[in-house]
């Protein structure tokens, strides 16, 4: 008996239950079940009163209603069970990603540090083929590490554990730093980078490190997907920064392969990679844009894009400025 009461109370603590699954209230089986229960009670009561008014035999009406309610309860319980199973599977998947990524991190760090020692020349100079192979080893380790850290970020987003800082900073400084950082890479890929920055922009309120990651991701994508195998055209990336009401708008425009129309609606889904991209760029996790959009959404901003296949793509995001943040207080 005690056990039943305990289980009942656990089930009644809706917020805690929903937190356990890492789903929002709207998707949470416990919440749905309770909402359904309340709806049923309201129906019963109102039906009863209608019965009193319009029927000479209210007991009969009440009996019918109670019968119906029991059937409804049984049905909704079955729904609840299946929902719960679904949520549990989802939670396990997120946990699995998190555990695996954490476990991969240690051996990966070991490898990275050992390769660093081998390459540093502490144990003797490396040259020629040997140095070349070490370099390959290092690059692939970095690639693996990037994937692991992306997976961890995804598992944090899904478990609603991603914590973002709220700091004031200048997007202009961030963009200018990034351009000088990316310039060598762009030049070596025969891509011209143009910056178009409106003067006197207000500061934005967001997590500067995560915003940097978002913009880096957009720039990497632009550079990667300009490298069209068909045309020998000059690649160009236009980075724009401007005001948009109480937001600062940032956009990255490229003249690369673009996104096919059919693929456009999936572009922010995790693990999604467009058809034309997969054909000639085999590496890539399909997580970058999913993470970017999650970060921007969570910061109170918006993110979107426009593109036509073969002509290029423009990805934009806007972040709230200090003014908007103080207005909302």
């Amino acid at each position, binding site marked *: 008996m005690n056990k039943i009461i305990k289980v009942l109370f656990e089930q009644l603590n809706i917020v805690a239950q929903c937190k356990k699954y890492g789903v929002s209230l709207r998707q949470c089986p416990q919440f749905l079940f309770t909402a359904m229960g309340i709806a049923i009670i309201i129906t019963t009561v109102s039906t009863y009163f209608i019965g009193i008014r319009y029927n000479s035999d209210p007991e009969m009406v009440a009996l019918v209603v109670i019968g119906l309610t029991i059937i409804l309860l049984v049905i909704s319980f079955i729904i609840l069970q299946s929902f719960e199973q679904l949520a549990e599977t989802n939670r396990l998947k997120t946990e699995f990603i998190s555990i695996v990524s954490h476990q991969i991190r240690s051996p990966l*760090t070991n490898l990275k540090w050992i390769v660093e020692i081998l390459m540093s020349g502490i144990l003797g100079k490396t040259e020629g083929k040997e140095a070349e192979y070490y370099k390959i080893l290092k690059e692939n380790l970095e690639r693996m590490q990037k994937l692991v850290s992306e997976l961890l970020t995804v598992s944090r987003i899904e478990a609603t554990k991603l914590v973002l800082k709220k700091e004031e900073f200048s997007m202009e400084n961030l963009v200018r730093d990034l351009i000088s950082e990316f310039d060598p890479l762009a030049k070596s890929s025969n891509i011209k980078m143009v910056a178009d920055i409106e003067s006197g922009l207000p500061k934005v309120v967001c997590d500067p490190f995560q915003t940097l990651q978002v913009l880096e991701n957009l720039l990497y994508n632009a550079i990667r997907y300009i490298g069209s195998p068909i045309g020998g055209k000059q690649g160009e990336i236009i980075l724009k920064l401007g005001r948009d009401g109480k937001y600062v708008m940032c956009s990255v425009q490229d003249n690369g392969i673009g996104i096919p129309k059919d693929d456009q609606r999936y572009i922010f889904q995790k693990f999604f990679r467009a058809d034309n991209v997969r054909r000639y760029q085999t590496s890539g996790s399909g997580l970058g844009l999913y993470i970017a959009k999650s970060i921007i959404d969570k910061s109170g901003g918006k993110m979107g894009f426009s593109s036509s296949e073969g002509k290029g793509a423009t990805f934009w995001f806007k972040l709230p400025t200090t003014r908007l943040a103080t207005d909302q207080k």
Partner: protein
Amino acid sequence: MAKKILFIEDEAVMQKAVSEFLATEGYEVISSLDGELGLNAAKTRKPDLILLDLILPKMNGFEVLKELKADPATALIPIVVLTNLSEMGDIGKVLEYGVTTYLVKSDQSLKDIFAVVEKILSSVA
């Protein structure tokens, strides 16, 4: 005299890599493979800086941190937490002990770690 760095870390490969690197930069590295040994070494060997992992056998990093800060003989030794735990909760817990440097292993190269150590030790000296 070479500065002494105590590295409390249970994974032997990491011990080896960091010790090797810091030794060539002229530091003396004392290695401890678990929390208890690490705490003892901190008290007896008087290191100039402690590199501390958080997931450790026998006594975890948080406990080591607590003991180090509670003992006046070791409370002032600068501590750099070097771990693969990167959840905000863990970082917050460590910062409460007055540790200012929290490094996530997988984000660091040996050069980065050396730079941090060098910076802290040069500001102390």
